[in-house]
């Protein structure tokens, strides 16, 4: 698994009071969620990682190499990102061509690209729609398509900005499944999300941001065990914990299944 390291990272938007400062951060877990309130700096980190923004000071290293030295093509092959709104990037005439276009940015072999596109579309359940216009798909399907354009390139590291927003529940299950497959294949997945139930149930690590600083990195169990911290940074615990604490049980539960495991048969 590729390893991302941030060192003494500083960034400020010109003319705004917001500034990001990260002293030392390693994304070591294969599945990390970045959480925090709006304006905490989550998207700014993603933009720095993808080179949309340049840090004022400090460096970002991937597997020990400075990200600033990457050629554009290598960067595409190393870090792939999908944004929250699928409509910001779809412009080709058919679903398949949309995926092929992405592939053509890193690879000139048309036949290979076409095959790869078919494979990926089948993977996200869009094989039947390959010949349709992207804008004729439902919002949920369009979102899956933008994810497919990144899956096709198969970068080492995947960044997802709010992937669950506007997905319906079957698509959410499918995406979670895809995440686990990626991790099993040795990829790293880093996700920005507001969905604490999902974070608690599926992720190995959580990174909490507030006012441009990283306030916490650790397992979901450690995070939600620290109620003071959760409240201070404006998060909510997973719903199952709201319910169990109402029942007078103050232990940490990450999902209903987690609750059965700890309480059944006692």
């Amino acid at each position, binding site marked *: 698994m590729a390893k991302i390291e941030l060192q003494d990272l500083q960034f400020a938007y010109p003319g705004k009071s917001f500034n990001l400062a990260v002293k030392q951060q390693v994304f070591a877990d294969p599945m990390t969620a970045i959480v925090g309130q709006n304006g905490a700096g989550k998207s700014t980190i993603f933009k720095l990682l993808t080179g*949309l923004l340049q840090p004022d000071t400090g460096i970002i290293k991937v597997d020990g190499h400075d990200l600033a030295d990457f050629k554009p*093509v290598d960067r*595409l092959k190393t870090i792939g990102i999908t*944004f929250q709104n699928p*409509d*910001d990037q779809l412009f080709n005439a058919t679903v398949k061509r949309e995926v092929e276009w992405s592939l053509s940015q890193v690879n000139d072999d048309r036949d290979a690209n076409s095959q790869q596109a078919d494979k990926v579309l089948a993977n996200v359940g869009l094989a039947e729609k390959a010949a349709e216009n992207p804008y004729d798909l439902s919002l949920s399907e369009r979102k899956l398509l933008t994810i497919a354009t990144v899956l096709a390139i198969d970068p080492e590291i995947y960044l997802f900005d709010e992937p669950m927003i506007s997905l319906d529940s079957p698509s959410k299950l499918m995406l979670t499944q895809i995440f686990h497959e990626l991790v099993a294949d040795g990829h790293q997945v880093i996700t920005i999300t507001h969905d604490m139930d999902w974070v608690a149930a599926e992720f190995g690590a959580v990174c909490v941001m507030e006012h441009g600083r990283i306030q916490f990195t650790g397992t979901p169990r450690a995070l939600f065990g620290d109620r003071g911290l959760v409240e201070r940074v404006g998060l909510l615990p997973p719903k199952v914990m709201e319910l169990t604490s109402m029942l007078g049980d103050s232990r940490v539960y990450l999902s209903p299944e987690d609750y059965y495991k700890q309480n059944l048969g006692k």
Partner: protein
Amino acid sequence: NAIDPISKLLLILDMALLSFASTNLLLEAGLITGGLLLLLFSKVSSTTVKALGFSLFLIFTMLVIQGLFYSKNQTVWFSIIGINFYKEGLIYATTLGSRVLVIILASGFFMVTTSISENAKYLEQSGLSYKTVYVLMSVCYILPEIMGNMRKIQQAQRVRGVNPQKTVIQKLKSVLPVLIPLVIKTLDQSMTRSISLQLRGFDNPNRKALKSTNRYRLVSGLHIGLTFAAIILIGWKLWTKISGLL
């Protein structure tokens, strides 16, 4: 704030015409000072400063180009590292630059002293249909929104490998990936917005135009006077042109 928007526009027109009618540098200087004073007495915003900076840069390139290559160049005024700058070209460029400055200063004055909603209210009160006012004025609000959409789209495409930054070819190649999502998104938003405007009573016959909070003075007098001045200036310019030809 006692001047109504139309009078201000006419004032801009007059100043522009005056500066075009004359080739007298002193008069131009006077007009520039006038424009500057108007601007300073109202409120200076960062956008006007930026616009001014850009036009000053433009004028500078004008000075260089005309100073070097103006067709009537004869007298060398000064030279820098062996390159000669000619007097005729520089004077000509100064005249042109002053005209540009006058227009920009006057327009800047208009923009900083008149809020968009003030314009909208004024136009609606002076009898324009609300739909026309909407088209003319909502653009000012929609524009930042569209620019924002555009930036987001550009970023989304840049991380997919579109790079509009270097050559002209790259720039052109990046047009479609940005333009198509932008236009489709705009169509989409237009549809939502038109549904929502209808739901929110846009064409409700009970609509009452809001009373403008500003009281304008001497509206008709100013209009007539300024229009008259504009006509005289145009006439004078035409007359000098024609008599020049004769």
